[in-house]
C-alpha cells in the first residue's frame, strides 16, 4: 500500500473515531456506568486511538522522506518522482502534487527546479453534489501540516480527556451550583452532566480534525461551523449560570460576524472559479485532472507565481464579455475570444479586487474564530466554560483553526491581504497583552495571552513568515494548553479564579507549580541564545526575525516589528506576574491556602506530559527531523522567494523566509527576544516577587491608563453602544410597528369579519334554513301520503312489476311503432 493510499485511510479513521464515540455517548451515554462514568472511558479511548493512528501516519510520513521544498537541494526530486509514480499506478482519485505532476497533467514545461511544489495528497471520499464543474465533496488534503496538526490536536486532546476525567468528576453525582441562585434564593440543585461533557468533547475533536484534514473550503466551512457549535455547547456547559449562557451566545454571535465574511469569500471564489478544492482533483465525470485553488492561483506554468486566475478575471470582466456577446453572438467564437482576452484583462487588473475580497473574506472567518481584533471580545468570556474546554478549545486547537486556515490558504492570499492580516495581528497582540497586564482572573490572563499569541501568529503569517506562524501555532498549542491545565488545577484546588486570593501555592502543589513555570518560560520564549531553549524560544525567534526582515525590506511597516518586540516584553511581564502571584510569595488568603491541595494523578500526569512537549517541541532532531523542517515540506509553492508586488495597498515586498535565517537578522531578533523577555521577567519579579515597586503605586500613578486597561479598552462597552443598543432600539421600533399598526389593522379586519358573519348567520338561519325546512316538510308530507302505497305485500309488488312491464311494452310498441323484440 503506497503512502497515497495509506494516509487518507489512517487519518480518515483517526478523524471518524471521535464521531463514533460521540454517537455512542449521545445514545448510550447515560447507560455507561453509574451517571455515565464510562463516557469518559469511551471518549478518551476514542481520541487515544486517533492519536495512535496519527502517530503512525506521522512516522509513515517521515519514513516516506518527502523533500523539503526550499530552493537549495533539488536533489531529492527522484524520490518524489518515485512516490508520484506509485500513486499514479495505484489510485487515480488521489493526486500527488510535485513538479513532475505538471508533466503528467501536460500543463507546464518541466524543469523549474527552483519552484518546488510541496508534497501533498488530495482526493475525495464522498461527493455530496456535482454538476458540471461545481463539486461539493468530503475530501482530504494531506501534507505535513495536516499530519502535524493531527498529532498535536489528538495528543493534546488525549491529555485533556484524561485531565477532564478527573476535573469533571463533580458531574458524576448531583451538583449543587452555588453560582446559580433560584428565585427562592437557594442554590440550584441539578443532576450531573458527565456524559454530556464528553459527548461534546468528542464531537469537537471530530470537527477539529475535520477542519484539519478538509480537502476543500466548503468542507472547511462545514466543520468550521461544527467547532463553533461545539464551543457553544462547551462554553454554555453550565448554562444555568447567566454569565455562561450569555458568554456562549456571545461567542457564537461574534463568530457569525466573521463567518459572514467567510461566506462572502467562499461565494467570490466559487462564483469565479467554480471549485473550492485545495489541491488538484480527478473529476469522477471526466477522468482528467481538474486544477484546484492552489493550482489556479499559482499555476505551474507561471512558476507558481501568484496571479489572478482566469475564472476570476472573466468573472470580474463580465461587462467586457457582454460587449463581446453584443459584438458577435456566436457562442463558439465567444469562449475562444474570452480565453484570448483574459491575459490583457488581467494586466488591466480585472479580478484583482475579487481575489482581494476573497482572501479578506476568508480572513474574516479566521478573525472571528481565532479572536483577532475587532472580534476578540468573545474569547475571554469563553473562559466561563470548564477549564479543560478552555485548554483544548479556546487556547490550543479551535482558536488556532483560524491561523491554520490562513496558513492553509496562504497561496491564495494576495500581499494586500497579508498586510491586512499582519496589521490585525499586530494590533491584536498589543491590545490583548496590555489588557492581560491588569487582569486578575487567572484564566482571563491566560485568555488574553492566548489572544495575543494568536496575534503573533497572524502577524507572522502576514509578514510572510509562513513556517514561523504555524510553528508558533504548534508550540503555542502545547504550552498554552499546559498553562490552562495548570490554572485549572489551581482553580480546582482553590475554588476561585482570583489571583489576589492565591499565593505561595508552590509548596502545596509542586507538580502544578513547576509545570506552570515551564509553561511560562516556554511562552515567553526563554532559552539560552543560540544554544538551546524552550519550544517558544524557537518559534518566537522565527516570528521576530521574520517581522524584523519585513520591516527592513519595507520600512513603512516597521511598526509591526515594534509591536512584536513590545508584545514579547509585555508577555513576559504578565505571565510571570501571574506565576508569582499564584505560586510565589506568601499566601494572601489563608482560608484558600489551607484548603488547597495537589490535584490527583489523572490531572497531574497530563501536565507533565504536556510540559515535556512544551520544552522540547521546538527542538530539531538531527536529520532535519523537527517541526520546523517538517513544516518546510508543506510550504506552499512559490512562497519561498522574495516577491515584490504593487498591490492595492501600495507596493509590498514579502521577504523570503529563509533569508530571516541569515546571520544579521537572526542574531538581532534572538537578542531582542531574549532581552525583552528578560526585562519583562525582571520587572514582574520586581513588582510581585520582591516588592521593590508597588503595583498599587503604579496603578495610582497611571490611573487613566490603568482604568482604561482594567476596562479592557472599553471594547465591550463600545460594541454595546455601537451594535447592541441600536439593535435593541430598532427591535423596539419594529415591535411598536407590529403592535400599533399591524395588530390594530388585523383586529379591525376581524371586527369587520364578525359583523359580516352576524349578517350571514341571520341570512343562514332565516332564509337558507327556511328553504331547507320547507323542502324537508314537503318531503315528509309527501312521504306520509305515499307510504300508503307500500303495503309490504310481496305479491302486490309482483303485480306492480308486471303492470309496469306490460305498460312499458305497450307504450314502446305504440309510441315507437316497434316492438321490443323486433
Amino acid at each position, binding site marked *: 500500500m503506497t503512502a497515497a493510499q495509506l494516509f487518507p485511510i489512517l487519518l480518515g479513521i483517526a478523524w471518524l473515531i471521535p464521531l463514533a464515540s460521540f454517537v455512542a455517548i449521545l445514545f448510550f451515554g447515560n447507560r455507561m456506568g453509574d451517571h455515565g462514568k464510562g463516557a469518559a472511558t469511551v471518549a478518551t479511548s476514542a481520541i487515544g486511538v486517533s492519536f495512535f493512528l496519527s502517530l503512525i501516519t506521522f512516522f509513515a510520513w517521515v519514513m516516506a522522506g518527502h523533500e523539503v521544498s526550499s530552493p537549495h537541494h533539488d536533489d531529492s526530486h527522484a524520490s518524489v518522482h518515485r512516490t508520484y509514480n506509485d500513486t499514479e499506478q495505484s489510485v487515480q482519485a488521489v493526486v500527488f502534487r510535485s513538479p513532475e505532476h505538471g508533466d503528467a497533467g501536460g500543463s507546464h514545461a518541466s524543469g523549474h527546479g527552483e519552484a518546488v511544489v510541496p508534497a501533498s495528497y488530495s482526493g475525495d471520499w464522498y461527493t455530496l453534489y456535482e454538476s458540471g464543474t461545481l463539486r461539493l465533496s468530503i475530501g482530504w488534503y494531506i501534507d505535513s501540516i495536516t499530519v502535524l496538526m493531527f498529532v498535536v490536536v489528538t495528543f493534546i486532546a488525549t491529555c485533556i480527556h484524561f485531565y477532564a476525567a478527573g476535573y469533571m468528576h463533580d458531574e458524576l453525582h448531583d451538583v449543587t451550583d452555588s453560582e446559580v441562585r433560584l428565585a427562592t434564593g437557594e442554590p440550584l440543585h441539578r443532576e450531573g452532566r458527565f456524559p454530556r461533557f464528553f459527548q461534546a468533547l468528542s464531537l469537537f475533536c471530530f470537527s477539529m480534525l475535520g477542519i484539519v484534514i478538509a480537502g476543500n473550503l466548503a468542507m472547511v466551512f462545514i466543520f468550521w461551523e461544527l467547532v463553533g457549535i461545539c464551543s457553544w455547547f462547551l462554553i454554555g456547559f453550565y448554562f444555568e449560570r447567566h454569565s455562561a449562557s450569555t458568554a456562549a451566545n456571545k461567542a457564537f454571535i461574534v463568530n457569525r460576524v466573521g463567518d459572514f465574511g467567510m461566506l462572502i469569500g467562499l461565494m467570490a471564489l466559487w462564483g469565479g472559479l467554480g471549485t473550492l478544492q485545495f489541491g488538484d482533483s480527478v473529476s469522477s465525470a471526466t477522468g482528467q485532472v481538474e486544477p484546484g485553488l492552489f493550482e489556479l492561483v499559482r499555476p505551474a506554468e507561471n512558476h507558481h507565481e501568484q496571479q489572478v486566475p482566469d475564472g476570476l478575471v472573466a468573472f470580474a470582466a463580465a461587462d467586457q464579455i457582454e460587449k463581446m456577446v453584443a459584438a458577435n453572438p456566436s457562442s463558439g467564437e465567444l469562449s475562444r475570444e474570452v480565453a484570448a482576452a483574459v491575459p490583457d484583462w488581467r494586466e488591466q487588473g480585472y479580478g484583482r479586487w475579487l481575489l482581494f475580497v476573497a482572501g479578506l473574506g476568508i480572513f474574516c472567518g479566521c478573525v472571528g474564530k481565532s479572536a483577532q481584533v475587532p472580534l476578540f471580545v468573545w474569547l475571554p468570556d469563553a473562559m466561563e466554560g470548564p477549564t479543560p474546554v478552555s485548554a483544548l478549545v479556546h487556547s490550543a486547537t479551535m482558536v488556532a483553526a483560524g491561523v491554520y486556515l490562513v496558513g492553509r490558504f496562504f497561496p491564495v492570499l494576495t500581499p494586500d491581504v497579508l498586510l491586512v492580516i499582519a496589521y490585525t495581528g499586530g494590533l491584536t497582540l498589543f491590545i490583548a497583552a496590555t489588557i492581560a497586564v491588569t487582569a486578575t482572573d487567572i484564566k482571563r490572563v491566560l485568555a488574553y495571552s492566548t489572544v495575543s499569541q494568536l496575534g503573533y501568529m497572524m502577524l507572522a503569517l502576514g509578514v510572510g513568515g509562513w513556517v514561523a506562524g504555524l510553528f508558533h501555532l504548534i508550540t503555542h498549542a502545547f504550552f498554552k494548553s499546559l498553562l490552562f491545565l495548570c490554572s485549572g488545577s489551581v482553580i480546582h484546588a482553590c475554588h476561585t479564579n482570583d489571583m489576589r486570593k492565591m499565593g505561595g501555592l508552590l509548596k502545596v502543589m509542586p507538580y502544578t507549580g513547576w509545570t506552570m513555570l515551564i509553561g511560562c518560560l516556554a511562552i515567553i520564549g526563554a532559552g539560552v541564545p543560540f544554544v538551546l531553549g524552550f519550544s517558544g524560544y524557537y518559534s518566537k525567534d522565527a516570528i521576530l526575525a521574520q517581522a524584523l526582515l519585513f520591516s527592513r525590506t519595507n520600512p513603512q511597516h516597521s511598526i509591526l516589528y515594534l509591536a512584536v518586540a513590545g508584545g514579547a516584553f509585555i508577555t513576559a511581564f504578565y505571565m510571570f506576574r501571574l506565576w508569582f502571584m499564584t505560586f510565589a510569595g506568601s499566601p494572601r488568603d489563608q482560608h484558600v491556602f489551607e484548603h488547597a491541595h495537589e490535584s490527583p494523578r489523572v490531572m497531574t500526569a497530563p501536565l507533565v506530559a504536556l510540559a515535556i512537549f512544551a520544552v522540547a517541541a521546538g527542538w530539531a532532531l538531527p536529520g532535519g527531523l523537527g517541526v520546523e523542517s517538517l513544516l518546510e515540506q508543506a510550504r506552499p509553492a512559490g512562497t519561498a522567494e522574495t516577491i515584490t508586488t504593487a498591490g492595492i495597498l501600495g507596493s509590498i515586498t514579502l521577504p523570503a523566509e529563509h533569508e530571516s535565517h541569515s546571520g544579521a537578522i537572526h542574531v538581532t531578533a534572538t537578542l531582542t527576544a531574549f532581552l525583552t523577555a528578560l526585562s519583562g521577567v525582571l520587572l514582574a519579579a520586581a513588582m510581585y516577587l520582591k516588592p521593590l515597586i508597588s503595583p498599587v503605586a503604579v496603578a495610582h500613578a497611571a490611573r487613566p491608563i490603568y482604568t482604561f486597561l482594567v476596562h479592557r479598552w472599553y471594547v465591550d462597552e463600545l460594541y454595546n453602544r455601537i451594535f447592541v443598543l441600536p439593535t435593541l432600539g430598532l427591535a423596539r421600533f419594529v415591535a411598536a410597528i407590529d403592535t400599533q399598526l399591524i395588530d390594530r389593522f388585523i383586529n379591525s379586519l376581524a371586527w369587520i369579519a364578525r359583523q359580516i358573519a352576524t349578517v350571514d348567520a341571520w341570512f343562514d338561519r332565516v332564509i337558507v334554513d327556511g328553504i331547507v325546512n320547507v323542502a324537508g316538510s314537503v318531503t315528509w308530507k309527501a312521504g306520509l301520503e305515499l307510504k300508503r302505497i307500500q303495503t309490504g305485500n310481496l*305479491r302486490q309488488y309482483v*303485480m306492480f312489476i*308486471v*303492470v309496469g*312491464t*306490460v305498460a312499458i*311494452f*305497450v307504450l314502446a*310498441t305504440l309510441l315507437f311503432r316497434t*316492438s*321490443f*323484440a*323486433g
Partner: protein
Amino acid sequence: MNHEAFGLSANLFAFLDWHGFFFLLFAGVACVAAVMVVLSDNVVRMALHLVLSLGATAGLFFLAGAEFVGAMQLMIYVGGTLVLLVFGVMLTAQTQLVALRTPAGDRVIAGILAAAILAVLLQAAFSVESWQKPGQGVAAAPRATPLGMALVGVRVDQVAEEKLGQPKNGYLLPFEIVSVHLLVVLVGAAYLARAKRRQVPRPVEIVASTDSLKPRPSGVASATLVSGGPK
C-alpha cells in the same frame, strides 16, 4: 342409434317427424306442468310439477342441440328444486299445516295480468320474420368444448371472424365473477340459515286466521304430513 334418431334428417321424406313429436311432447309437458305449479296448493305437488317442467325444458334444450345446457339444467335446476322440495316438506311439516289459499280477487287480477303479459310476449315472439322460418336442420355442433373454451376466454367458434384474440370476446371474467358469486352466496346462505335460538313460534291461530282452515282427518301422525292432498 345416434343423434339423427331424433330427426335431424327431417328433410327426408317422413310423415311423422320425430323432432316435432318430441318437441310437442316436451313443450306440452313443460307448459302443463308449469300451469299445474300455479294451480296446485300443495307445496310438494308444486315441486313435483316444477321438476317435471324443468326436466321437460332440459329435454327441449337437448332438442335444440344444447346438450351441455340441458345436462346442466338437469343437474343444477332439478337438484336445486329437489332441495327446495326437501325444505318445503320440512318447513310445512312442522306446524299444523293449512293450505294458504289466496283470495279470489287476487286470482282474478293475476289472471288478467297474465293474459296481458302473455299477449305481449306472444306478440313479441311472432314479431320477427326470421324467427318463424323453420330451422334448416343443420346438425348442431356439440357445444361442450366451445363452451368450455369460451368460459376460459377463448372463442373457438369465432376463429373465422378472427375475434379469437379479443379479450372481451370470451367469458373468462364473467365466469370468475359467477364462481366467486356462488361462493359468496354459499357462505351467506350458511350464515343466514345457521341454527339460532328459536323463539317460541306465534300461536297458529293467526296463521289459520284466513277462512281456509280445512277440517283435517283425526290427528293421525301421518295426517300432519299430508297437506291438502286430493281426498
